[in-house]
Structure formats: structure tokens, C-alpha cells
């Protein structure tokens, strides 16, 4: 990430009160960007957003992505050069219970954002780059062991996955019809989508996620109970995909044409570890006699999980994951111990961001 590029850049982040959005705000602020945010209030309590007082860093508008008029007004007023769209209903389980709300937020929310951008551009707001953040679950699950590529079929069995596949398709429709590169001179906008999986990092209080559940248990001084010890999941620190999004934004801004498409940002292949492996490491790092037990029941070895093939981002953007699963877990534990001892959490986040940015990796 290029600090000279980001210094003073006007960036609008939607959904910036969420876990990932909060980390993005911190990362952008560390780079000197001028960030505004459009989001509902933080989805959890406590939240990284409140603990780090991100509303002091980022001029914040608490509003709903389903409210087109307010969104339109915000974009006209903020005049962003770069927009990163993260506002979403992000939970698969919630989507089963309330599919309509998930579709409204994830599909029509994307339509609203792109419609507002289109109108703002007509009114002379020089928006240069829009990044729509979707998910690795936007791919039609073929139950195969290989990583998904950006040109694989989209689709999904559950409402969440399907809503994100639709968000991708809607983005493509706007890109082809209203932000077509052939008319670039007239609109000046390039649009891309980014697809990453579940990420981990300090300050996540989401429900039904392994690491947040474990941290909550450890903070209470209780024993962790795990149900699917052999389940293999990919583990990735939140800063890895976020740095990819920003790298992409730099490219889109400077010379959008080769980059206005979908991009995968997933962990390297060795990022897949069993739940038990991860929990064992969490306990070792936590110390203090932290322990876990495996709940009774039938524990099946899972054959494979959904993987992303990230060759394109590596080859064309020069992006590479920097923190492997061990480092990622260590960072989460460092953050959680700071939280337990009432340390300055903003300072911990900024320290981790510095470490991340200064880390040189051999490719």
C-alpha cells in the first residue's frame, strides 16, 4: 500500500461500523486518507468501532443502505473519490431466518449504491473507483477440491450466498451498461468486486464464529467446548484481504481498465487447519491454564472446504498474504489480552497495522 497515494484521498466506506469495516477505517487512517462512513450503528456490543472510537477518526453517518435518498445525499455531500462498499447482512444463519431482509440489504443495497454513484457522476462528482465487497460464497459450490477462480459460475444454495451472487451480477450490469470502459471519458468510474472468506482479527464479537466464541469463553475463564474438531477451515487475518482491496483501489484509480472485474483474496493453501489445531494454539497462547474439550458426538472428517484460487491477485496486483495462520492467531491473542487488561485498543490496532505494513515477505 502506497502512503503517498492515500494521503488526503477522499474515501467513503459503507458498513464501516462492522468488524471488517472498522479495521478498514483504521488502516485507511494510518495511511492518511480522509475517510467518511455510511452505516447502521455497530452490529455487536461491545464492538471494535466503539472500543477504538472510530467515530472520532471517521466522519460518520448512521443510516441504512436501503434508504436510497439518504445514501444519495451522503455521496453528493461527501464527494468521495473512492468508495468501498461493505454494508451487508453478513451472516448465513440470519439469512435463513430472514431471507427478505438479506436480499434487501445485499442485493438492493448494491443497486442503491451503484444508482447513487451513477447519479452523482451525472452531477459532476468525480468518483473514480468503486469496490463492492462480496464473499467467497458467491461461487456456485461444486463440491470440488480445487480453488475457485474469478470466472467460475456464481450462485448459492442459502439466501446469503445467493444474495451475494446477485450483488456480483448487479455490479456487472452497472459496469457494462453505465460504467462501460468504452465511455470512460464521459463517466470516469471503474467498478470492481472483491471476494474473500471469513477473516479473523482482534475485536470480533460476531455470533456463531469459532474464534470470537473461544475468546468470549477464555475471557470468562471457562473451558472451551468444540463440536467439530476435525472440520478444516481457512483462516486469514483481516489485514490480508483489506490490504488487497486497497492495492486494487490504487490500481483502479491510476489505470482502471485492466482491473475492473472480480478479485479473490484468500489465504494460502496452508491456511486450512482443523478446528482442534486452532483451539489448541489459542489455549497455548492464552496460558493461564486455558483448556478445551471435545463434545460428545459423531466427529466426521470433512473432505474439503471452499477454497479460493488467488493466482490472479498475486500475478496482476502483486498481492500476497503476509500473515500465516500462526501469526494471525497470535495477533488475535495479543489483541484479546490487551482488551482483558484494559489497554489502549486503538494503539494495539495501529501497532499491528504498522507491523503488517513493515513486514517484508519473500515471494
Amino acid at each position, binding site marked *: 500500500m502506497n502512503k503517498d497515494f492515500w494521503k488526503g484521498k477522499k474515501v467513503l466506506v459503507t458498513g464501516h461500523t462492522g468488524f471488517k469495516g472498522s479495521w478498514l477505517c483504521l488502516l485507511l487512517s494510518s495511511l492518511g486518507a480522509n475517510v467518511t462512513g455510511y452505516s447502521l450503528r455497530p452490529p455487536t456490543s461491545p464492538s471494535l468501532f466503539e472500543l477504538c472510537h472510530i467515530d472520532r477518526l471517521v466522519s460518520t453517518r448512521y443510516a441504512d443502505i436501503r434508504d*436510497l435518498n439518504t445514501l444519495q445525499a451522503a455521496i453528493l455531500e461527501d464527494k468521495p473519490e473512492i468508495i468501498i462498499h461493505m454494508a451487508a447482512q453478513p451472516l448465513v444463519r440470519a439469512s*435463513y431466518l430472514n*431471507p*427478505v431482509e438479506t*436480499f*434487501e440489504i445485499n*442485493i*438492493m443495497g448494491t*443497486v*442503491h449504491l451503484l*444508482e447513487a454513484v451513477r447519479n452523482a457522476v451525472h452531477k459532476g462528482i468525480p468518483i473514480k473507483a468503486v469496490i463492492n465487497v462480496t464473499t467467497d460464497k458467491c461461487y*456456485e459450490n461444486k463440491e470440488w477440491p480445487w480453488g475457485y477462480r474469478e470466472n467460475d*459460475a*456464481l*450462485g*448459492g*444454495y*442459502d*439466501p446469503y*450466498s*445467493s444474495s451475494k*451472487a*446477485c450483488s456480483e*451480477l*448487479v455490479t*456487472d*450490469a*452497472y459496469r*457494462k*451498461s*453505465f460504467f462501460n470502459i468504452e465511455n470512460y471519458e464521459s463517466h470516469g468510474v471503474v467498478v470492481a468486486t472483491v471476494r474473500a472468506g471469513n477473516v479473523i482479527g482482534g475485536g470480533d464479537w460476531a455470533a456463531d464464529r469459532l474464534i470470537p466464541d473461544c475468546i468470549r469463553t477464555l475471557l470468562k475463564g471457562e473451558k472451551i467446548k468444540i463440536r467439530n474438531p476435525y472440520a478444516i477451515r481457512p483462516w486469514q487475518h483481516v489485514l490480508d484481504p483489506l490490504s488487497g482491496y486497497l492495492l486494487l483501489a490504487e490500481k483502479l484509480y491510476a489505470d482502471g481498465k485492466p482491473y475492473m472485474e472480480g478479485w479473490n483474496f484468500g489465504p494460502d493453501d496452508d491456511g486450512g487447519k482443523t478446528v482442534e489445531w486452532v483451539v489448541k494454539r489459542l489455549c497455548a497462547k492464552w496460558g493461564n491454564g486455558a483448556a478445551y474439550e471435545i463434545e460428545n458426538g459423531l466427529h466426521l472428517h470433512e473432505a474439503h472446504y471452499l477454497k479460493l484460487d488467488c493466482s490472479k491477485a498475486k500475478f496482476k496486483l502483486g498481492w500476497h498474504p503476509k500473515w500465516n495462520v500462526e501469526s494471525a492467531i497470535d495477533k488475535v491473542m495479543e489483541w484479546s489480552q490487551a482488551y482483558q487488561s484494559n489497554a489502549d485498543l486503538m494503539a494495539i490496532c495501529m501497532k499491528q497495522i504498522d507491523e503488517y505494513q513493515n513486514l517484508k515477505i519473500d515471494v
Partner: protein
Amino acid sequence: MKPFWKDRNVFVTGCTGFLGRYLIKELTKSGANITGLIRGKGLDSSTFQEEFCSKINVVHGRLEDLSVIQEALKKNAIDTVFHVAAQSIVGTANQNPLQTFETNIRGTWNVLEACRHHPVKRVIIASSEKSYGNHSSLPLDESFPLQGRYPYDVSKSCADLITQTYFYTYQLPVCITRFGNVFGDGDLNFNRIIPQVIRSIIHHESPVIKSDGTFVRDYLYVEDAIHAMMLLAEKIEELGIAGEPFNFSNENPLSVLEVVTKILNGMDSDLQPIILNLATNETQRQYLSAKKARDILGWKPIFDFDTGLKRTIDWYKEYFTSLG
């Protein structure tokens, strides 16, 4: 009269549209009790509207309003739903994508959501060949990815994907029809190529082709399309095919220029088409394989293109004569 439909409570969206009106005509003949959703004032021709509305229970409301649909299903004890309403004009979608997405995507999830909370036995969602988007390998079969690239296609790809989700997640007994261009008696949408060309010729004007005339498409006569939808509804339970999409096509793709030439010949006209050669947001070649429908449903079209076209031309001649 098909005994299957006798006294069955059927809900039809888009019942004042081209497909909807034809569907209601066929369902009425088969003895079904029909409830139809009519947007706004509905039809422009008031005498036609009176006659039409006398045959069905009319529900006034918009597809975007979930409660209207829920209420209609409940009040009329609906057991079969045909969702054929859509904003179906490609040009309008390019002009107003927001409204097209509202109607075609939200409208579809509203129908599905209402059906999820009501004990319906079968739901048919009319999708389109357009939901496939652009593919270099043809003909399109049901396993092809749905990858629309322009607003209208994308609205159809999304509605289709969401429909499949309602089967996988909630086991909703739903099937999807994917038609090519449907033509025939009663299509009052003169943006479409066949009605437009027939009208021009009736008015002694040269038919205008916006593209270069080489676009290749499927054309299916409306009566075949309607029978396909009804057959699919009849078979969902028996064949255990819930959740599946079916293409319906007469598998005889034609270029726009071929279609226009056939109409000119069919109307004994010596007018020459005007080819504007304008760039449009449309896929160059697109047509369907109906193998799955043939193999699984035993479906085949009754009308070949020329027979369907003859009936269509006769209908428009009468229609324009009646307008004076």
C-alpha cells in the same frame, strides 16, 4: 378440459400481460378458479378489462408489496402459483435499472416468500433464456451458469438464482421455465420485433431493424409456452422435479432478418426492411436446447414457427381492423 385444473385455486401474477392473459384464458378453459394480481389500473381497453375481470378474482396491487401477495394467497386458499409478471422490456431496463430490479428481483422474492409461508403445492416462476447471459457454446442447456451482463438479463439471472435458493433452503415446490422469445396473439408490446414488424406492414411502412439483423434467437408460439407452464405445474409432484429449471424451445433459431423476411412473405408484402445497424446491449446469438423438457416431461411444441406466425398475423390483422 383437463381434470387436473378443475376447481383448483390458482394465483397468477402479471395477468394483464401477454403471457398472463393467455394463461388465464387456458386455465379458465380448464376449469380453474383464478385469482389475478393487477398492477394499478391494469388494461387500457376498458371493455376488454370488464370482460376479463368478470372471469377472475381481481387483486389490485404491486408485486413489490409482499403483504398484498400474502393476503391474496391466504384469502383465496391458493394451491398453485404462476409468477409471470415482470418488467420485460430490455430498453426500459437500460433506462431504469432500479425499477426493473425492484419489479423483477424483489417481485420474485416476494412471491416466493409469500409461498413459503402459505401451504402452496406448486409454484411456477417464468424465467427467461436471457437469464443465461452470453455464452460462446450453444445451444444453452439448463446446466449453463446464469451470468447475465446487462440490467434486464441480470434481473432475470438473479430472480432465477433466488428461486433455486427457495427450493434448496426451504424445499419450496417450485419449478422454473426458461423461454426464448414468446410471440403470438395478443402481444400488445410493440417494442418486440414480431408485433412491431407486423404493425409496420399493416400500416404500409417498411419494418425497421435496430440491429444489423444478424442476432439469432429462439421463438416460441405463445400457446406452446402456456401449455409448457401448465404441464410443468401438473408434473412437479409426480416426477419429483421441484427446484429444477426447464428450457422450452422449438429448437429452430432464426436471425432477426429471417424473421422479418418470413413476416413480409407471410403478409404478401413487397416492402423492404430498413436496417439501422445500431449497437445495442444485447447478446449476438442465443438459443435453447429443450432436450430436458422433451426427455423428462415428454413435452414437444405443437406449432412450428411458420404455423404460429400465420395465426399471429391473422390475429393482428383482425386487431387493427377492429381498432379501425
